[in-house]
């Protein structure tokens, strides 16, 4: 029973992969977590690279030299890697190579819904699309052989409902790994000067022909017949790929219509003969694929070249949406509309009682909330906020509202430069530590050299938090958990020659606010590094101490109901009950920042006993009035049960 992402890692291990690289990104992140766990034991080299382009280049180097490599990333990560990606395909590789793009229809955790199958057409790279964890494992395992056979990388395109689905997976033996061997020079293949580029393009087109033949006989492209009534006596062909296949085969039997299904697992190059022959025997074809009409336009092309005039239904008639994910209901509706069936669809309707929204938010104790509060206070909320990608993007939410723009990883630094030139206002860019290493550095060098004027706040929480606490170059551990050299962001930035570089602890609200004030007054680039460990990691460590987490509470006798804490700071451990403001003792992580926000000193540290303040609370453990109640067992057990 494996998660789709675990199945991918398993398939690679069965294929004897030597090197795996990535930059973490949902929905692909658990592939890295799995390699982090199994890599060392199996002798697989695994790294978290600084960004996707570097990840792809490291893997490419290994495969050019003859090893098997897997580079995996989320869909927008392939945009970052695209420069290396497109040219690498023209060079090809000696050892098998799979590049995985985890697309995110419905943008569950992404900034767009782009359909990366078009990268297969752009780069002319053979592509596989699995429907289930079992198939993903097999496509990776066999894909390495296919890649080696054609000496070209293969693109494995997944979607969220493959990566984050669990299903039974049949395991096979783990494959052997290769020993390093001396590099065999071949500059007319691997040094892509224009002359070589012109030589490689015909090679790529020849390889496309071979890959198409491979597709014609691929075990991943197959037909399946469904029995039932033929609508209006018509022969129906449904062409589908990826997770859409699962929905098609689930809804067809219950609809009771006769249809032939062509499931395409190798979606570039498409098996043109296979499709053309099937179209020739069909009255009505329906193309069922998520997002863009990628197969649909090619199927119409095949039909036109064969002189076929059958009906081809899909996105062109708006029978299937080009947005969001499919599900069984969407697919059923599309087929019903395409065939003009009179079929009663299940009646169901949403709740008429409105559920309050439950958006994700910054965790209790999150140091980013403190940094945002300090920066906002320092500029009196007059600055333009260039936001970047990470947990901290949630600074968008009220009451903080510190996000005016957010484009892609690392973009805040470049965008801040443009904003400062265009507005004449104070501008601040917020970027996380991992994102800064990913792609913030070139933009910062640009800003310095081109005399941009803004504040760069580097929110250094000592991890890649959003995707599950992966390592990065600022952490003294690598992706396999071994000690590694780490870079100090302050040293790095000072090394560029920036004169305003200050490191603050955002849990110390006043000094942090003062530093931001001076940064806003500074002309040119001012860098403020807000360094405090991610609250989830702090909480985990605190739960292992004898004291556990000691929450804060609001002394109702001293609270003047000004609502600064809930209205301006907005930590989610705070709540309103009638006129009173309280702190949820289970949620509070004891960071104490809200006590610094309160102008009246009404927020105090509790004694840490299970039922909240016992009346013998203290601010600093002095010994004399310490509570002797046993520590909260709930807080202690929390980590284990989760």
């Amino acid at each position, binding site marked *: *029973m494996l998660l789709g992402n675990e199945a991918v890692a398993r398939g690679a291990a069965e294929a004897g992969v030597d090197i795996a690289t990535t930059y973490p990104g*949902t*929905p692909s992140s*658990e592939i890295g977590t799995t390699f982090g766990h199994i890599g060392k034991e199996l002798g697989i080299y695994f790294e978290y690279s600084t960004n996707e382009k570097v990840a792809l280049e490291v893997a490419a180097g290994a495969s050019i030299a003859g090893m098997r490599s897997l580079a995996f990333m989320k869909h927008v990560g392939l945009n970052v890697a695209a420069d290396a990606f497109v040219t690498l395909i023209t060079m090809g590789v000696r050892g098998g190579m799979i590049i995985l793009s985890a697309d995110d229809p419905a943008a*569950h*955790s992404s900034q767009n819904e782009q359909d990366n199958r078009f990268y297969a057409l752009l780069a002319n790279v053979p592509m596989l699309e699995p*429907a*289930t964890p079992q198939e993903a494992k097999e496509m990776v395992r066999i894909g390495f052989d296919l890649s080696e056979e054609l000496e070209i990388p293969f693109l494995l395109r997944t979607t969220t*409902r493959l990566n*984050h*689905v*669990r*299903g*039974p997976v049949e395991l096979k033996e783990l494959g052997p790994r290769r020993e390093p061997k001396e590099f065999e020079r071949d500059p007319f293949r691997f040094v892509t000067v224009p002359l070589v580029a012109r030589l490689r393009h015909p090679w790529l087109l020849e390889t496309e022909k071979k890959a198409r033949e491979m597709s014609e006989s691929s075990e991943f492209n197959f037909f399946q017949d469904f029995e039932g009534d033929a609508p209006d006596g018509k022969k129906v062909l449904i062409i589908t790929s990826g*997770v859409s*296949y*699962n*929905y098609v*085969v*689930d*809804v067809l039997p219950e609809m009771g219509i006769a249809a032939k299904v062509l499931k395409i697992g190798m979606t570039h190059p498409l098996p043109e003969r296979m499709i053309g022959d099937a179209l020739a025997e069909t009255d009505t074809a329906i193309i069922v694929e998520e997002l863009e009409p990628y197969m649909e336009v090619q199927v119409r092309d095949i039909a036109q070249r064969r002189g076929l005039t059958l009906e081809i239904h899909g996105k062109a008639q708006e029978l299937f949406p080009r947005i969001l994910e499919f*599900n*069984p*209901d969407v697919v*059923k509706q599309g087929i019903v509309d395409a065939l003009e069936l009179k079929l009663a669809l*299940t*009646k*169901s*309707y*949403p*709740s*008429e*009682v*409105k*559920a*309050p*929204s*439950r*958006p*994700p*938010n*910054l*965790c209790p104790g999150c140091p980013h909330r403190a940094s945002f509060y300090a920066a906002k206070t320092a500029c009196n909320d007059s600055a333009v906020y260039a936001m970047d990608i990470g*947990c901290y993007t949630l600074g968008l939410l*009220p009451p903080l509202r510190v996000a005016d723009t957010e484009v892609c990883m690392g973009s805040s630094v470049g965008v801040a430069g443009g904003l400062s030139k265009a507005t004449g206002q104070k501008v601040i860019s917020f970027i996380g530590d991992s994102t800064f290493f990913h792609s913030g550095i070139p933009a910062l060098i640009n800003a310095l050299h081109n005399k941009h004027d803004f504040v760069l706040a580097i929110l250094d929480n000592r991890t890649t938090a959003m995707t599950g606490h992966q390592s990065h170059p600022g952490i003294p551990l690598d992706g396999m958990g071994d000690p590694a050299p780490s870079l100090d962001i302050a040293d790095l930035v000072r090394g560029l020659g920036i004169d305003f570089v200050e490191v603050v602890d955002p849990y110390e609200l006043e000094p942090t606010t003062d530093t931001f004030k001076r940064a806003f007054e500074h002309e040119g680039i001012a860098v403020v590094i807000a360094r405090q460990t991610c609250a*989830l990691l702090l909480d985990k460590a605190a739960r292992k101490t004898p004291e556990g987490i000691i929450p804060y509470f609001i002394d109702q006798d001293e609270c003047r109901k000004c609502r600064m804490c*809930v209205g301006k700071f*907005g930590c*989610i451990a*705070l*709540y*309103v009950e009638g006129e009173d403001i309280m702190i*949820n003792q289970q949620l509070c992580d004891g960071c104490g920042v809200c006590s610094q926000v309160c102008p009246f000193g009404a927020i105090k540290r509790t004694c840490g006993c299970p039922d909240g303040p016992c009346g013998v609370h203290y601010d600093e453990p002095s010994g004399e009035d310490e509570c002797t109640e046993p520590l909260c*067992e*709930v807080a202690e*057990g*929390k980590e*284990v*049960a*989760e």
Partner: protein
Amino acid sequence: MSDDQSINIMFIGVGGQGILTASTILGHAALAHGTKVAMSEVHGMAQRGGSVTANIRMGDVHSPLIPAGETDILLSFEPVETLRVLEYTSDKTLVIMNDEPIYPFTVSLGQEPYPSMDEIKAEIERHAGGLISFNALDIAKEAGNSLTVNVAMLGALAATDKLPFDVEHLRKVISERVPERFIDVNLKAFDMVLEKVKGEL
């Protein structure tokens, strides 16, 4: 559940309630029993207090997503979260709900109202075939650890007799998949809810 049938179970609740742990235990129990199973979960935002859903389908199905109206059992860990997925319920759906609310920050900070429990229950009953609700948090606390709510809710599921395997099989898989020192307290919570729900069916 006979061989040619399938059963669709949806889990819904809030990040931090252990929903993915519970749904994974159920999936493993099905697999260990030799039942075909497909599951889908929502990742990414779970740690940050957002809504969490897991779909489990056992039997001859391919898609891990449950079609609208086709849920057999909706196991809800939080009242208003139930409202969010009512389109997946119908006359055939049994809703089993932990009625302890977890207020979203939009409510706790006074930005949005939380509907009354009577209103929530009436709306669920209007959509679904049946509703069993109880306070799983209280039971979990009584069992000895408030974090056993997730396993306690599996006890409610076992009480329905709709699973393709027996209670002992599920208890065994739970003991294999929770940390050793928490096995007893989890099974205690499981049994307490099992008895309670059996009494109400």
